[in-house]
């Protein structure tokens, strides 16, 4: 029956069908684009099930002169030192050796101070005393600990979320807050945004608002240090989102070509304002793994584990200082607070996401470790928190006496024209006069 019913017309149309089939197989099926999605949005339950948290203590400490080719497991795994019982374990714990209780309590103090400052300044912004603020909640261990491992004369090239470096460098709070209030104590004379500090003597390069630019500058600073033989190193800092910038790749390339003494830090806090980290990562396994393609050794580290931060910072800084070239560290962490005072994260991520973060809170974990060692207690912690808050509040009050945005004691407008050039050109002199100063 089928044969009989098969008319010439039918066979004609079936041959056309074949032709269409051949054409479509030549053209392929329609390519579909990928649009990476975060694990959960506001109406969903926080979900970090895709994040693999390896056991503490399983990764080796590589030789200081390791090549990228030997770094794969370090770049896709995660260096962790504190185990479930808050005890240090494994090769990186051995690398640290015996740590004094004082050193660890200093770390805890730095982080508590950082958190107290963030809290007070957020509050000040809400009261209109400063125009803008931005917290680093959840990321305190990274900068606080890294800075303590640097030497005088080393230079950080930070982003706006590394106020931790300033706190651990014992940058005077009067200056930090003076800038936040844009009063006469502001070392940058009101020119910069409140949070965009610059503190050369404290190893803190002038922050730019333009993401990524500092990363390749860190390479240049490190090259100059090598060329002039200062023995100092540079440390670049960048967020996960900003690794997408051209300058991130420029930095990796030039670091790979010239092998300068630079530690390239990526703070992967999972978010770039409302944008999920997958939009910056694409199909890369980790940010650390990306550096391997440039021939730069790289490690991924639990950034909420103060001891892991200490061990890897010490190792990387030593590697750079001994002349083995660049290294990239991906600090795995979570931005627990809003991006800034202009942001409301409940519009793009679950409210409870920070609580679901599998790597916990850096302060809680170091505190638990110190208690497990017998060098700390709940009572001492509560007392220390209160003392530090008092200290910070006392400085804040003193700084506020010099003026805030609510009660301004303005910096001279003439400051606008100073330091544009080393010598003020005639046309700026004229403009300053026109302004009346």
């Amino acid at each position, binding site marked *: 029956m089928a044969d009989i019913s098969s008319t010439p017309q039918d066979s004609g149309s079936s041959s056309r069908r074949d032709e269409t089939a051949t054409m479509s197989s030549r053209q392929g099926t329609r390519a579909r684009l990928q649009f990476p999605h975060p694990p959960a949005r506001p109406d969903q339950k926080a979900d970090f099930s895709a994040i693999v948290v390896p056991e503490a203590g399983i990764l080796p400490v590589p030789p200081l002169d390791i090549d990228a080719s030997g770094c794969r497991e370090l770049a896709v795994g995660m260096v962790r030192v504190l185990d479930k019982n808050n005890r240090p374990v494994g090769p990186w714990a051995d690398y640290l050796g015996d740590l004094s209780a004082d050193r660890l309590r200093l770390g805890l103090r730095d982080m508590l101070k950082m958190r107290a400052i963030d809290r007070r300044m957020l509050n000040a912004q809400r009261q209109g005393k400063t125009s803008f603020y931005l917290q680093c909640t959840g990321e305190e261990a990274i900068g606080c600990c890294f800075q303590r491992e640097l030497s005088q004369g080393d230079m950080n090239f930070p982003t706006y979320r590394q106020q931790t470096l300033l706190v651990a460098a014992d940058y005077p709070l009067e200056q930090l807050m003076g800038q936040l209030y844009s009063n006469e104590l502001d070392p940058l004379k009101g020119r910069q945004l409140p949070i965009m500090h610059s503190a050369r003597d404290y190893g803190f390069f002038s922050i730019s608002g333009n993401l990524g630019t500092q990363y390749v500058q860190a390479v240049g600073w490190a090259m100059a240090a090598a060329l002039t033989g200062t023995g100092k190193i540079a440390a670049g800092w960048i967020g996960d989102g900003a690794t997408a910038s051209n300058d991130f790749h420029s930095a990796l390339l030039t670091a790979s070509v010239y092998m300068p003494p630079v530690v390239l830090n990526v703070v992967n806090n999972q978010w770039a304002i409302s944008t999920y980290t997958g939009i910056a990562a694409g199909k890369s396994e980790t940010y650390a793994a990306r550096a391997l393609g440039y021939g730069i050794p790289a490690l991924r580290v639990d950034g909420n584990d103060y001891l892991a931060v200490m061990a890897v910072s010490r190792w990387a800084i030593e590697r750079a200082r001994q002349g083995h070239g660049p290294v990239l560290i991906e600090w795995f962490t979570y931005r627990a607070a809003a991006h800034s005072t202009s942001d409301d994260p409940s519009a793009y991520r679950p409210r409870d996401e920070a609580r679901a973060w599998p790597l916990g809170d850096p302060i809680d974990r170091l505190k638990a470790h110190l208690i497990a060692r017998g060098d700390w207690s709940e009572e001492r912690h509560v007392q220390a928190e209160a003392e530090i808050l008092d200290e910070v509040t006392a400085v804040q009050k003193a700084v506020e006496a010099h003026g805030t945005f609510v009660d301004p004691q303005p910096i001279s*407008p003439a400051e606008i024209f100073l330091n544009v050039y080393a010598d003020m050109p005639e046309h700026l002199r004229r403009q300053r006069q026109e302004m009346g100063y």
Partner: protein
Amino acid sequence: MARMTMIEALRSAMDVKLGDDPSVIVFGEDVGYFGGVFRCTAGLQARYGEERVFDTPINESAIVGMAVGMAAQGMRPCVEIQFADYVFPAYDQITQEAARLRHRSNGQFTCPLVVRMPTGGGIFGGQTHSQSPEALFTHVAGLKVVIPSNPYDAKGLLIAAIEDPDPVIFLEPKRIYNGPFAGDPHGKSVPWSAHPAGDVPEEHYSIPLGKAAIRRQGSAVTVLAYGTMVHVAEATVEQTGIDAEIIDLRTLLPLDLDTIRASVAKTGRCVVIHEATRTSGFGAELIAEVQEACFWHLRAPIQRVAGWDAPYPHAQEWDYFPGPDRIARALQQAMEA
């Protein structure tokens, strides 16, 4: 008619174009799910899907570079740069690629794209959230440069920009996203709903590129302004009682010289105002054009009010911003000479 802020009007323009032209596509940093840090694209991804409205990595040259590739094939990308201060990584793609593609390929490839970006100061944004880079684009052959001063114009101009066959730089004065600004930071803030230009039709309409608007008829002096400064100029003219004619340029490139010429021929005096730094600013171009076109009508030197030649400061914002006092002085000088 609906009452819209400038943000809503811009969103409505993109909504209309996404709806009536499948080749229109919108992307940028935080633009997709969240709808942009200024909320200009809020709701568009939910409405049109991720293939039409999406988030990008933080790489401005990639944003514009992708748009160039898409536009060359006939799509109409309308991309967002989060702040005009962050457009510079894309400067190469915009000025060397998008601007010249038509010319260098003799029309084989063209570049009908729009690059939107918030511009200007007035929000205590410091040097990296306050700049006005229009002159860095008006200096480039092949680009069009647009800057609206109210919601009605914003929508009509953005639709025209998306429909334009060539690349358009679309600058959005962020100080007036939510309401006009008279230049006094301590003054009462006025919402767009209280301003006639806050009346915006829901449907499609366009305002031709290259056409200025006369905001106030007058006979004593011609004021050339755009963006936020249109409102500051209007308020200052009101305060001084000078019978100024205020021209809102709306499109800087190509420039509506006919409207300018007719006005200056009538008034014989001219004041040029912009927020951007003075030296080599767009005001210099305006002054040169007015001088060439109207020399024999001029009764006084042309006055210029602009940002000081220094980076935009944070705390001294209102000493830097060319506000009513400086504009009033320039108007007086133009009148006295």
